[in-house]
């Protein structure tokens, strides 16, 4: 993945708006957070291939980490802490935030076709 370039990502967000898209949204501090730091708790949330439609999208940030907000008819989707992006297989927009050790902490991915699911990769 590459460091986020706002204009390029904004262009992709706009290209994918006003249509039915598949969304992957995830955040995690890892399954071992409370194992290695007994004061911590494991937190995380995950949804893959949620079918959504957004009418407006913005990426905003300070140059190192970014926030993306997607406005839907009946609500919002957002992610923060995004640092990297890439286009997977020519058409899937992947955004991710990595901590100092390079571990993924948040991911927001948007695609016109479903993301590969269990079994597809075997």
């Amino acid at each position, binding site marked *: 993945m590459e460091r986020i370039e706002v204009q390029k990502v904004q262009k992709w967000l706009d290209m994918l708006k006003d249509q039915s898209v598949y969304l992957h949204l995830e955040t995690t501090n890892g399954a071992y957070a409370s194992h290695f730091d007994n004061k911590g708790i494991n937190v995380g949330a995950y949804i893959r291939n949620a079918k959504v439609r957004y009418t407006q999208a913005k990426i905003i940030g300070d140059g190192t980490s970014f926030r993306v907000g997607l406005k839907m008819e009946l609500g919002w989707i957002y992610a923060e802490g995004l640092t990297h992006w890439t286009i997977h297989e020519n058409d899937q927009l992947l955004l991710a935030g990595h901590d100092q050790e*390079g*571990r993924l*902490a948040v991911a927001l991915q948007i695609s016109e076709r479903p993301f590969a699911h*269990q079994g597809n*990769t075997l």
Partner: protein
Amino acid sequence: MEKHVVIIFPHPDDESFGTAGSIIKFRQQNIPVTFLCGTLGEMGRNMGKQIFANRETLPMIRKQELAAVGKLLDMDIHLLGYQDKTLEFEDRQEVAEHIKEILNKIKPSLVITHYPGYAVHPDHDAIGAAAIEAVRLMDPEERPTVWAQAISTNYQEELGKPDVIHDVRDIFDQKMEAILTHRSQAEGMLKEINGHLQLAKEDKENLKRRLGLEQFYIWEYHD
């Protein structure tokens, strides 16, 4: 001597961190080893020191890393096909039946899995429970011995001294080679020394202390 050893863990790399030394020693005695790997670890957070993987490429990368470890340790790999981080939400009985079918074909003399409740990661606990149930479902005459591996911080206080202790410090470099073959997951342990990513000496000594003994509890069935 064992006839065939089956290792049942949920993630590519569990076998290397937990049992690479034992696998090497079984293979030295020509005992076949099969690793039933529950998932591809596709939800892992580690993407490589230079971030060479992403959420979509990670499954294939980890699958290739696992195949390379299979070659390195000369063991068979069998993928169970579940999705990372969802094993505890699957129907336990279904997973147990799935594992039992495979065990009935391989007919191992020994099964190694995680100790449910003492294995930290929900997938570890779930696959340990399903594997133990799978063996319980077998004809008592044909059941393999089950060794359960605990990894939680205070497991010895609650479970007592493990029944089986393999000291693998004599082959620790080989164990590290297996761990580091899971490059996407293990590369973060390395440091740049003289322009190369290497395992620092003090880090290796630490790992040797943590991973140099492979310990197991013999599961007792009371049915």
